């Protein structure tokens, strides 16, 4: 069964088309990568999935329920929040600077579950443990945490409502190499333990190779290639995908110039 069905999505700002005729599905437990450079429209797709942007045309359904544009009740918004959650690139700007890490999780729990304060606290600490944080971190403010720890808080916050889909928008891009590997492993653990699907937005093909089952490559708002991640990276069919792959530094790699523009 598909947890996400996006059909012919389109988003136009003024006379600029950010997303054009983008369709894809995400199966239960699947990890789909959306690959592209800046301006490719990959983040706009993510924001439309979350309801942060209204598609100009096209339809989205999450967990089998269509999400038509327009205002919805608070109850419906909560229901939608329990279906899909997001982790942003920079947890420093997406977390409240004045809210302690533990309260971030508890606020989310209080909104969605009828728990006593003691139960809530217990559940928040369990979530902390599942993302590799300790009890002492719960009392800290975002600025007292390192970048990797902040991203763990953002992941715990997203997982708190037990969503079916987690959208990760460049969620490991700003992290140090050694921390990035830890978070990628954490995400792999989470997917193994829960029935959760990922939509992993990234420009980093090596990271995409490690985290996703399927991938779509976007350019100028359109899908240029799609397929099984492994095949797509081994035998890209499109010139653009090949150019992206060729630009990744590796042993023996030499940087190259395109034509002057």
């Amino acid at each position, binding site marked *: 069964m598909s947890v996400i069905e996006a059909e012919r999505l389109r988003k136009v700002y003024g006379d600029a088309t950010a997303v054009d005729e983008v369709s894809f599905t995400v199966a239960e437990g699947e990890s789909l990568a959306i690959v592209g*450079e*800046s*301006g490719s429209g990959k983040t706009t797709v993510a924001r439309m999935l979350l309801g942060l942007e209204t598609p100009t045309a096209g339809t989205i359904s999450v967990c089998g329920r269509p999400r038509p544009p327009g205002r919805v009740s608070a109850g419906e918004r909560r229901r939608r929040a329990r279906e899909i959650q997001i982790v942003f690139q920079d947890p420093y700007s997406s977390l409240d600077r004045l809210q302690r890490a533990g309260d971030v999780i508890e606020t989310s729990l209080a909104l969605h579950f009828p728990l006593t304060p003691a139960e809530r606290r217990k559940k928040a600490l369990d979530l902390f443990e599942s993302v590799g944080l300790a009890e002492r971190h719960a009392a800290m403010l975002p600025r007292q945490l*390192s*970048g*990797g*720890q902040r991203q763990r808080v953002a992941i715990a916050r997203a997982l708190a409502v037990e969503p079916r889909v987690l959208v990760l928008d460049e969620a490991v891009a700003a992290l*140090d*190499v*050694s*921390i*990035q*590997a*830890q978070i*990628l*492993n954490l995400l*792999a653990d989470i997917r193994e333990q829960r029935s959760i699907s990922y939509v992993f937005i990234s*420009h*980093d*093909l*090596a*990271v995409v*190779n*490690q*985290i996703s089952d399927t991938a779509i490559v976007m350019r100028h708002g359109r899908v240029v290639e799609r397929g099984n*991640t*492994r095949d797509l*990276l081994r035998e890209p069919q499109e010139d653009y995908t090949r*150019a*992206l*792959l*060729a*630009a*990744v*530094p*590796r*042993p*023996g*790699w*030499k*940087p*190259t*110039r*395109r034509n*002057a*523009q």
Partner: protein
Amino acid sequence: MSLLTLEGFGLAVPYGRGRRTLVEQVDLTIGRGEAVGLVGESGSGKSMTARAVIGLTPPGARVTGRIVFDGAEVPSGRALRRLRAERIAMIFQDPRAHINPVRSVGDFLTEAMIHNLGTPVRQASARAVRLLKEVGIGDGERRLRQYPHELSGGLLQRVMIASVLAVEPDLVLADEPTTALDVTSQSEVMAILDELRRERGMAMLLITHDLELAAATCDRLAVMYAGRIVEDIDGEPRHPYTRGLMRSRPSLEEAVHRLPVIPGRPVAAFEAGEGCAFGPRCDLAEPRCRETRPPFVRGVACLRAEETA
């Protein structure tokens, strides 16, 4: 003779009533026309080291050791300004944060030529167009009239490089010049830098967190951890930190069940204890590693480097 030499360079910044060490005991040399990569994670002190070369140290910082450029210690005041204007240029990670948003690209590129070299305005503009062409921007006349917000990050970084070329410096300090760019722009910007370096005999110090990028574009690499250089890479990496970094990076060729990770997080110099700063994260650490800082011997600061090689 080397162009730039750092000898026992260290830097500490005021913190509360005391000081915090950010960089210590860094020895580094760059020859004329040579490209050296300085690789490290956040807090390793790599940017602080590069910035100190042109006197961009944080307020109240205490600098120890010597920085020698072309036979003389890096000066201060007016002489330092001359050095920055004529011989050492810097390219920053985020071009948008280092360009005046209310001045046109043309103003930015010609200002130094007009004020420092006394070039007539018309000639300066013509030269700016030629420089833009060299960095792969064809329609220079139009670009000169544009403002920074009208250009993409990749284009703006090329404008930055063009401004560096206007000076024809002996040394370019490139601080994560491609981190904010897309991979295809990164490839292009690095190719431009590489080409210009070879053609003009410019030396480059490339500051980056990306080992693969540095390895592909530099003649030599130094790896920093907690404010110190832990390894000068010559062939296969030998320091457990460098090896761990290379292993933990996901690969394009194969996906693994779990990445081999380095536990813990990178630390800054002032957070490191008595022994090896990497010791607490190292799976090869022995009791002796906790006692003293490992000396830098034959290109690596690790007591167990000989065994693991």
